[in-house]
């Protein structure tokens, strides 16, 4: 049963991502409407922020959302304090539910307040562990905080308790496959179960199997993502993942505390001990100069060599970091070479109508050859002049973007829902978009003035956001897989 009397407001500072609701600037809201519910317990915390005449301007019993929208930042913080006071006294699930919802409303413009919502939601979960309400609220709060892995996990927990919870499903669908802003780091995040959770890039499990939500990070995550591209992975993506996940051994980045590199410590201690043993064993009761006549000269040499080694050890991490930073540029350059190979491969193909010609052309200039070169030559469709702008975006340099999906017209590119929205905005530039009119479809839609339609679905069967293009002359789907 949808339990949330208030309107859930998930505000997140992305490009427009909304359906059937107002947009304001760069931010947008997703609203999951539910039947009205008594908000008496928290109402005063909001209304008390206004003078009577100000409050009267809102009309009789205004919605809390309207009050929040009419608040100054100071008033919102005042309402937060009011909620905190109520939270301290709250003992009933209904009270905590209202408080969490109140925090969520306020977190629209103050995302840090979402942490308060998590706290209240966790208490609600403890009071009613079998109910989905507490988990939906915590999922919404994590979503607000852009902690998408935890949002998906909490939403999955809510769906496990109530598979029909629409709010949970919405948060789940919008969170799964998205990367946390804290990507790659691990830490405890107010998890109601108290388990340590990873917020590394990961894809949440489907709602039907919430128990299968697993931690995924490092090489395991990179492997999973790379294999998603079905045999034609982008070299840039794979290289970047490899770079991002390759530890630098003793020179790995990170805090330079002594305990950070046991390997380095062990080697240093072992070498020092061995040196001391050799020194004392070798002297045999003689003075240093008696034993080693050339010790002054040798010590000078040792000082120079040792100093050089010390300088190298100090500067090595920086060198590694520089090399690591330069690698993507190198890979991008190699990819550019690959781009250059395509038109030449096309010419060769036009002349010989054989793939071998294309491939050899690519090899001649390429030094970089990749299956995607061959694929691209096959997949350039004939398109109409009215679709020129879209062609330039989707088929730059005569090569369709991304790698092929389940067919050549379905492309898979690395990206999040934000990238999908950016692409949609480019494709529909100068055209007013609207909520997707398709039955049961959540997303955006635009009819192009020169003919054709473009749709963005926030979710597809397999999960990732998908752009549909139906322009006279060619049709495409572009699926955005979380990198």
């Amino acid at each position, binding site marked *: 049963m949808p339990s949330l009397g208030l309107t859930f407001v998930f505000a997140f500072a992305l490009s427009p991502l909304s359906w059937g609701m107002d947009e304001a600037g760069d931010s947008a809201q997703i609203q999951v409407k539910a039947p009205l519910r008594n908000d008496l317990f928290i109402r005063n915390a909001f209304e008390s922020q206004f003078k009577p005449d100000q409050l009267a301007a809102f009309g009789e019993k205004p919605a809390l959302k309207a009050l929040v929208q009419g608040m100054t930042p100071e008033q919102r913080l005042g309402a937060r304090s009011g909620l905190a006071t109520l939270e301290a006294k709250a003992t009933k699930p209904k009270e905590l539910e209202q408080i969490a919802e109140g925090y969520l409303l306020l977190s629209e413009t103050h995302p840090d307040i979402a942490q308060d919502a998590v706290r209240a939601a966790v208490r609600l979960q403890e009071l009613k562990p079998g109910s989905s309400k507490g988990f939906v609220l915590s999922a919404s709060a994590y979503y607000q905080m852009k902690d998408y892995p935890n949002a998906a996990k909490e939403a999955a927990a809510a769906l496990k308790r109530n598979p029909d919870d*629409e709010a949970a*499903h*919405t948060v*789940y*669908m919008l969170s799964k496959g998205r990367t946390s802003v804290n990507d790659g780091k691990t830490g405890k995040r107010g998890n109601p179960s108290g388990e340590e959770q990873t917020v590394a890039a990961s894809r949440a499990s489907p709602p039907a199997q919430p128990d299968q939500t697993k931690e995924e990070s490092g090489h395991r995550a990179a492997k999973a993502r790379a294999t998603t591209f079905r045999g034609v992975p982008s070299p840039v993506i794979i290289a970047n993942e490899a770079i991002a996940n390759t530890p630098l051994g003793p020179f790995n980045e990170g805090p330079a505390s002594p305990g950070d590199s046991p390997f380095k410590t062990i080697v240093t201690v072992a070498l020092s001990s061995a040196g001391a043993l050799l020194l004392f064993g070798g002297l045999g009761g003689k003075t240093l100069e008696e034993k080693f006549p050339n010790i002054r000269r040798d010590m000078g040499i040792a000082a120079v060599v040792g100093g050089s080694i010390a300088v190298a050890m100090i500067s090595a991490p920086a060198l590694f970091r520089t090399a690591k930073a330069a690698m993507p540029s190198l890979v991008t350059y190699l990819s550019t070479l690959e781009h250059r190979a395509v038109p030449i491969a096309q010419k060769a193909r036009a002349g010989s109508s054989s793939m071998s010609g294309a491939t050899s052309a690519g090899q001649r200039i390429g030094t970089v050859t990749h299956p995607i070169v061959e694929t691209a030559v096959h997949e350039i*469709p004939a398109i109409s002049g009215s679709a020129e702008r879209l062609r330039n975006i989707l088929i730059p340099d005569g090569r369709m973007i991304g790698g092929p*999906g*389940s*067919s050549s*017209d*379905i492309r898979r590119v690395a990206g999040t829902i934000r990238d999908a929205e950016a692409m949609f905005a480019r494709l529909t530039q100068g055209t007013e978009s609207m909520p*997707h*009119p*398709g*039955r*049961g*479809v*959540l997303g955006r*839609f635009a009819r192009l003035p020169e003919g054709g*339609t*473009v*749709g963005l*679905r926030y*979710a*597809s*069967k*397999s999960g990732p956001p*998908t752009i*549909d293009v*139906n322009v006279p002359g*060619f*049709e495409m*789907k572009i*699926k955005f897989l979380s990198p």
Partner: protein
Amino acid sequence: MNEANFVKIKKDLLRECEDDWIALWWILAKVRKVCGENCSNDKARALVMRLVAELLSSGKVEAGCPTSTGGWKPWRLSHPAALTRIEAEWDALGEDPDIGKELVWFTASPRVRPHQ
């Protein structure tokens, strides 16, 4: 469109239905792409309906539509009834299906999904 092209489109659609919901406009676009300019609207529609009929009767694909919560709602109709409904809705639409005017979507039937 020759039979080989027809079979190829059908195979492509079967594969695509495993990965995504496939709308009617997508099938129409594929048919038009192969038919070219020589394909009249009526002929294209007939080919689309034949494809849909064969896909449904194969038992590997089911008709329905996505839900606003990201799920899938199958039509609880027999294949002939589903075809009749599609024809009727297409007529009522008065134009070709398109993005936003999907009429119907298709996806791989759960019974034959590879992992099951």
